[in-house]
Each structure stands twice: as C-alpha cells, then as structure tokens.
C-alpha cells in the first residue's frame, strides 16, 4: 500500500464581506442605556401610582402639603419640548451643512438650561413652603422622581454643551451628535409622562 499524496489546488479564500454597520455603536450603546433608564423611571412611576392609590380617603396631595405649581411647570414643559424640536432642526441642519447647526444647537441648550434653572427655582420655593423629602411620601416621591429627571437633564445638557464645542471646532461627527441627541430626546420625552403623573 502506498500512501500517495495528492496536491489539490488551493484557491484563495474570498475576503469576508464587511457590511457597513447600519447603527453606530454609540447610538446602540445609548439605546441600551436609555432602556435601563426607562425601566428605572417606570419603577418610580409604578411605586408612585400604588402609594397614591393607597392614600387614605384618596386625598392626594395629603392634607397640609403644598400644591405643586402646575401652570409654571407647564411653561417649563413647553420650553423642554421646544428644545427637543430645535435639536431635531439642528440635526437636519448638521446633515445639510455642519456649521449651520450651531445656532439651533445653542438654542436647544439654552432652552434646556431654562428648564433646569426654572425647576431649580421651583424646588427652592417648594422647600420654603415646607415640602421636603421627609415631610410626606408625597414630598419624597416628588423630589425622587423630579430630582432623578433633573439629574438626567443636567447630564444630557453637559453632553449637548460638549457636542456644541466640538461642532464649533469642526470636530463633531454625525454619530456623536446622534448619540448625544438620543439622550436629550429621552430627557424630553420622559418629562411629559412624569409631569402628568406627579403634577396633575
């Protein structure tokens, strides 16, 4: 028996086809983070709903607790929603011509800053009226839910400011703007739900 060796012609392996990713890693990562945050707020909303339902006599806000400024916060809500729309305009402007996105992006930051500042003023007034974390479950939930949102708003604003400076230097990429914008849209879109739940 002979062990003959055969020489097969070796064809070069075809190069793997690399598809262009249809979603950038930044946006996908931000979406995963947003999902986690949506569940965090959903948990808070659920807890608030149950505590509200358990209140004796259905009296919410509880007796002796200050009422929340519904009208003033409606103006803040409008400012936040407009900032989201302006950011969308800035996105379209960026895709058309990068430098033209500067003004709408700056306007969006200013409107977001107005929202955070106004909420801060509202908190100061409410603390003065005696609504604290310890005053009741009403106060506790108010500061927890609205405070958690404010923390996110400040974080997203810082990201928008970072994006603005990069845009100013001509370094901002489309992926970076999309990632930062996704975070701001989350802050904008979750707020009306919280407003209806906590204030109305």
């Amino acid at each position, binding site marked *: 028996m002979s062990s003959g060796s055969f020489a097969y012609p070796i064809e070069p392996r075809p190069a793997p086809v690399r*598809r262009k990713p*249809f979603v950038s890693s930044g946006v996908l990562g931000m979406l995963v983070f947003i*999902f986690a945050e*949506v*569940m965090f707020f*959903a948990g808070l909303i659920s807890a608030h*709903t149950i505590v509200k*339902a*358990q209140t004796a006599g*259905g009296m919410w806000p509880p007796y002796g607790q200050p009422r929340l400024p519904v009208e003033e916060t409606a103006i803040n809500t409008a400012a936040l929603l407009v900032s989201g729309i302006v950011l969308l305009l800035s996105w379209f402007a960026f895709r058309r011509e990068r430098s033209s996105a500067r003004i709408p992006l700056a306007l969006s930051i200013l409107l977001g800053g107005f929202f955070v500042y106004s909420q801060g003023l509202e908190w100061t007034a409410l603390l003065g009226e005696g609504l604290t974390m310890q005053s009741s479950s009403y106060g506790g939930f108010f500061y927890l839910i609205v405070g958690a949102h404010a923390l996110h708003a400040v974080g997203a604003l810082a990201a928008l400011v970072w994006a603005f400076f990069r845009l100013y230097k001509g370094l901002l990429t489309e992926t970076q703007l999309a990632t930062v914008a996704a975070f701001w849209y989350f802050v904008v879109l979750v707020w009306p739900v919280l407003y209806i739940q906590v204030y109305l």
Partner: protein
Amino acid sequence: MSRLRTLVLALIALATVPEIAYACAVCFDGPGETRQAFFATTAFLSLLPLGMVAGTGAWLRNKARRADTDGSAESQDD
C-alpha cells in the same frame, strides 16, 4: 421505601398545609383601588420592556433591510 414515604408526605403537605400561596401578600391586601393599581403597574412593567425590545428589533430589521436594498442597488450600478 423511603422514596415512597417522602412522596406520600409531600402529597399530604400539598393537600393540607397551604390553601393559597401568595407570592406577595401586599398585592392582595387593601381596597379595590390599590389592587387595581397593582394590576395596572404589573401589566405596565411587564409589557414595557417587551415593547421596547420588539420596537428596537423591528427598527433594526428595517434598517438592515434598507441597507441590503441600498447595497444591492449599488452593486447593480457597478
């Protein structure tokens, strides 16, 4: 023999000891409004992640299909 004894004891325990085992005693306590709130929030917290995952899946699928269509159109152009 000991296995049979264990089985009989388990059956007796199952038949006699608990009437209903509530996972969370709090959920079935309180007035109707509280119970309704528990049901509503349970449904909300259960469906929300499923909706988000389904929505993202549909969005990614749509994007992938569009990328495929664009890719095949480009290769036809070549």
